């Protein structure tokens, strides 16, 4: 069983002091230890932006891809070797702007992987522009008079798109966040964990204090049933998605378990030679 230390690297962080992403990284490492993962069988796909640097700080197999494309890469990785524990991580721009098309389809495909979105409502690495989750009226360098776009509601979108596990955490609430990531990993299918991860440099509105005042914890509500889709959607609507905890979950067979003829041995480890019998069977379709 790997220790927390084994999931760390010697790399010094490039994030600003106080960045929410430190909390996300720590919770991911705790969750990996909690599920009994090993660095060599863990594969992390990261996107572009501040959040995308995550792969530098976790000792595991890491692939750092193009902007918005973590989910397709993670799909290929998981189907290529179904024995791997696959995590994808990126920011709100990566997930809900440039990667939105992939996001919707990853939800309905339900490949067994966990997607952690580090959501700070702003573009940080490009130095402060509006993001798809920015509130209307949010002032940035590209919206000096305030954003006139309506914000994306990722959790409601996910629940309606057919997601089988949707949760939201807060980078400051470590025990709950680590537990949510752990549950996401243990969920046999696609798990979305949207994590509120404040930007201390470019977002002076949605701050740690602001979230501590506005967020409600679903764990504290004994009447909330995370298996009830209409209730989940209603709660997200009423709270403007300012909740933490498991929002929605359902049992469902993952994608890779449903592929016709897909074998238990990972594709990457199979003997790829085609035998005569199979070959003749294939060529027979031309007769």
């Amino acid at each position: 069983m790997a220790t927390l230390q084994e999931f760390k690297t010697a790399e010094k962080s490039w994030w600003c002091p106080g960045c929410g992403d430190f909390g996300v990284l720590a919770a991911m490492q705790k969750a990996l230890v909690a599920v009994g993962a090993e660095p060599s069988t863990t594969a992390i796909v990261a996107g572009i932006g501040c959040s995308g640097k995550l792969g530098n700080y976790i000792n595991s197999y890491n692939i750092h891809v193009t902007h918005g494309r973590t989910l397709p890469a993670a799909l290929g990785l998981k189907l290529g070797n179904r024995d791997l524990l696959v995590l994808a991580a990126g920011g709100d721009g990566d997930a809900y702007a440039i990667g939105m098309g992939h996001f919707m389809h990853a939800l309905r495909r339900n490949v067994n992987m966990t997607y952690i979105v580090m959501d700070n409502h702003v573009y940080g690495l490009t130095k402060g522009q509006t993001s798809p989750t920015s509130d209307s009226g949010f002032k940035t360098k590209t919206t000096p008079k305030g954003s006139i776009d309506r914000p994306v509601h990722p959790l409601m979108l996910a629940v309606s798109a057919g997601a089988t596990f949707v949760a939201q955490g807060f980078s400051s609430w470590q025990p709950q966040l680590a537990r949510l990531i752990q549950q996401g990993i243990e969920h046999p299918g696609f798990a979305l964990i949207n994590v509120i991860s404040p930007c201390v440099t470019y977002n002076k509105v949605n701050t740690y204090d602001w979230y501590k005042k506005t967020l409600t914890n679903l764990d504290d509500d004994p009447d909330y049933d995370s298996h009830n889709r209409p209730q989940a959607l209603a709660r997200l609507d009423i709270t403007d998605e300012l909740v933490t905890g498991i929002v929605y979950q359902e049992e469902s067979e993952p994608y890779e378990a449903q592929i016709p003829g897909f074998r238990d041995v990972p594709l990457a480890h199979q003997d790829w030679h085609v035998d005569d019998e199979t070959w003749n069977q294939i060529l027979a379709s031309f007769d």
Partner: protein
Amino acid sequence: MIAWKIGGEQGEGIDSTGDVLSTVASRMGYFVYGYKLFSSRIKGGHTTYKVRIANVPVHAATENTDILVALNQDTINQHARELSGGLLLADSVIKPTLPDGVKATLIGLPLTEIAKAHGSVVMRNMVSVGASAALLNLPSQPFLDYVESKFARKGDAIVQANQEALMDGYERVKREFAGASQLRLDSPVPGDRLVITGNDALALGALAGGCRLMCGYPITPATDIMEALSKWMPLVGGAVVQMEDELGSITACVGAGYAGVRAMTATSGPGFSLMQEGIGLASMAEIPVVIVDTQRSGPSTGMPTKQEQSDLMAIVNGGHGEGPRIVLAPSSPEEAFEDGWQAFNLADTLQTPVLIASDLSLALWSQTVDRAQLNGPKVTIDRGPVLSAEQLVELGQDTFYRYQITADGISARTLPGTKLGQHLATGVEHQPSGKVSEDPGNRAKMMEKRLNKLKQVHRLRDGVKWEGPSDADLVLLAIGSTVGAIREAQAILQHEGHRVAISWLRTLSPFPVEQFRERFQHCGQILIVEQNATGQVGLLMRAAGVYDDSRCHSLLKYDGVQFFPSEVVTAARPLLQTFVEVSG
């Protein structure tokens, strides 16, 4: 050599009629080349299917037709001029009339009515096949045998109805139009062959070469590759994923390549444009992946169902920055099969994206191929340098240097799941360990490392093919499906007494400079025949420094219609005359 064509509306069974004729002729020991005229719609709209049949291999399209089967007057109006004295078999229900000035023998048969009499209008294709077989003066038994094997699963009644419909067409021609057709094919040459398209051959090659994941997005004319693999993957335990777009398709393949599985995607121009970012990622992170671009007329949506070879610049140089990529160019189903598996060996051994530049005519048109040329179980699989956990222990390093600088630029990789092999693979510039770096010295070394790998390609592969005398007065040079047209043009010109060779490029990038120089050192004029408006093969030659202004000429076509051998012959003759005058 006989050219047969059927025309009608899309969705009227034109394709099945042509398929039956091709398959049976091939089984009898003839060589066929079948191609279509079609539009981007499903029902309605004019379509034709032409099959050239001979007892020698056929690889090209031609203008002339010997037998035209017309299911509507539109077909007659558009194509009867190709006949020049040939036979026009028309459904009498359309009251066929010959356009002014067209010389042809009109054979009217109630094709639709006969089909209905046998149970369904659907069987019109069988009536047409039977009538065509009679006009080709072929025996009916091979056709009846085919119907039996094709419909056996559907029961005796279906087999019998189709056979009767076929025989009705056959016998009515023999009876009512006896002697109308003097057409005779030379004796067949029996062999173990099948009729296959470039798309299917490429898919077969990929499967044989270990491709176990295909992620794609449907697009004409590449979709067949995805459809074929969708049928076959369950037999070998792999998967096909229909992605949400081409950005997802390429990136999923890159992720899979990182995991260590052989993954490919196949697309055409519009999708290929979207894939450039993913190809760049694979180049930078040194991840094997295979991409097929079955080119069609561009730019933008262009003409989705029409032939062109105009993506070459994008395939060779597309995208931002300078990353290594290998570009292969098959010219026949046999070569498409070969590239299908070789691409994966190259991608794995050189850890870089391998692109296959196909084109619509190669991808979609069917031709006869020897079964021995498609020997999947015999394909060799070379996974390139991959380290195991045991080897990593022996190395005894604290850190695994995934991008270690080596003499040839190739550094061993580890697959996720391998103990001690953890590393970061990234599209960001990085150090040998994979950690990001913007150090100028490291940057220069890494650029050289990646690009140096390409030097291995020509050692592994013959990039320039040649047929004919090495000191030919004229060489016809082409790529892709156009090679079929130059091969037939060469035969015509040689028959006229000229010394003509043909050559085609099998590797477009890196350009096989040395191989090209060696092949072309003793020949005379060079006619570059390519299907685009800007002479992209010529541009590649110029960039490689092998374009000789005093010897090179260009024949371009960009109207969406594939080259006819006669067009090449017409362009070649003046060059041969010039040569004679100059040298004489």
